[in-house]
């Protein structure tokens, strides 16, 4: 009896609301997936055609065979991973310093990292373009990775600082008293504990870079074309290639979702994994 009641509570209190949230998250995407397998003639019909009479993979075929979409996906992947690497490499040490050391100018500096985030990046495009041209980086992975660094780094510094702050300093102090060097402490105590934060920040940078259009459009040409720019090419002056666009949109979301499926285990490590209890 008790078991059944708790099962009932679980269903109504947790699984049903969770299902609603998932439906809300997926419905527009599902509409896109449905559209991507409809023949072009079904896309602009009144009354609306909900289910494709004869599903077709023609749009996907065209997308992969007749445009450079696969290569663009790879470019996006390289840029996004590069941005994650850059963002984490500079922000994790900085966050540790902000969180664990007290030094003059600490607070103003932290605030500066926040304020630079507030400037609308669209207005930075032209100065950044000129800068990249002087550095000779236009149309390289470097230009895009650095460009995405403009939002990734300040954000990551803040995010990581707040995650590090939520780790009790007693833990790393205890480790140092036990004879660990500072680097060892970071590697063996702080980083494992901060892992959910590192993963979250990494995901954030990855997704933002993956979806970024303006920098990708401005700072890269035909050598390093990302998926967002490629998708924009389906929206012409007098035509929208709905079939290609929905097929492309469907594919674009997949790598991020799969990535998240893999890394989400990492979100569950950290303090609840028992570090505190030892």
């Amino acid at each position: 009896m008790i078991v059944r009641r708790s099962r009932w509570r679980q269903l109504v209190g947790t699984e049903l609301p969770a299902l609603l949230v998932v439906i809300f998250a997926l419905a527009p995407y599902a509409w896109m997936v449905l559209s991507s397998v409809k023949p072009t003639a079904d896309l602009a019909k009144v009354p609306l055609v909900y289910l494709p009479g004869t599903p077709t993979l023609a749009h996907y075929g065209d997308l992969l065979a007749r445009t450079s979409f696969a290569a663009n996906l790879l470019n996006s992947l390289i840029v996004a991973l590069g941005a994650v690497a850059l963002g984490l490499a500079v922000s994790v040490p900085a966050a540790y310093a902000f969180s664990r050391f007290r030094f003059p100018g600490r607070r103003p500096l932290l605030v500066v990292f926040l304020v630079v985030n507030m400037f609308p990046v669209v207005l930075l495009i032209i100065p950044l373009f000129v800068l990249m041209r002087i550095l000779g980086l236009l149309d390289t992975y470097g230009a895009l990775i650095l460009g995405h660094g403009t939002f990734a780094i300040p954000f990551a510094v803040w995010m990581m600082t707040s995650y590090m702050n939520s780790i009790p300093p007693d833990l790393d102090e205890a480790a140092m008293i036990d004879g660990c060097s500072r680097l060892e402490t970071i590697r063996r105590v702080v980083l494992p504990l901060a892992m959910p934060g590192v993963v979250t920040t990494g995901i954030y940078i990855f997704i933002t870079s993956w979806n970024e259009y303006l920098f990708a459009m401005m700072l890269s040409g035909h050598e390093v074309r990302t998926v967002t720019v490629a998708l924009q090419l389906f929206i012409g002056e007098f035509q929208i290639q709905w079939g290609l666009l929905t097929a492309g949109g469907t594919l674009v979301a997949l790598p991020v979702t799969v990535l998240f499926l893999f890394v989400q285990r990492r979100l569950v490590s950290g303090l609840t994994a028992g570090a505190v209890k030892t």
Partner: protein
Amino acid sequence: MLAPAVLTTTAIVFFPVAQTVLLSLRDAVLYRPQDMPFVGLANYKRALDDEIFWISVGNSLVWVVLAVGLQFLLGFATALLLNRSFSWRAAARALVVVPWALPSVIIGLMWTWMYDFNLGVFNDTLVRVGILDKPVAWLASPDAALYAIVLALTWQGFPFFAVVILAGLQAIPAELYEAAAIDGANGWQRLRYVTIPSLAGVMATALLLRTIWVANSLDVILVMTGGGPGLATHTLPLYAFLRAYSGMEFGYGAALAVLLTLALLALVVLYVARAAREAAR
């Protein structure tokens, strides 16, 4: 340890920002690059006398409060749900991220299409179910357009809060809940006295960063309405963008951008104090 972050940020953010700020003091028109006279604060004065500037400020306020608020509430609820254990939790966690995994351009186009007067799935469904008796031109109505876009942005942004808060929830020591349970706290009390205080730092930072991000975002609006109908969805960054690139009045656009930054600073000054105190703890 700070050097890499400080140096890169100086080079790729601070330097272009400084350039843009200096340009806001000039009558900088992009198609006249040879002739950019210094005009002091004239661009700022012009903004304060500009009717469209004030309309944009008002829209921006509604936009930020609603979009961030809804994203946060929905994201928080989602995180709490996905923190409980149930059989398909891993799948649910991954699927919820889907909206966030789509480029803004696609989101703008898909939602425009779904809102379409004629071919939109919203109108079609609502009319079929009988909630509406005839289709509504959502994005062409000055009363509905802004809210329609807020809904699209809520959809896009709530997974961010869900993921960030979910990660924060993992960091709450189990002992705190155990102790609360021993004290006889019910579910609501545990949320109120354990979960929220423990998450305060992470939530404040996430809210702050998201507020900044949403306040600066314009791509979804640009795709869906371009600021219209009339001025109904003109926000400040969109206005700055249009002045800078459509009007090519880069100096004026830069001044609007600086004003936006100042407004954000004022808006989040409480946050900054709070978050900086948190960080300085």
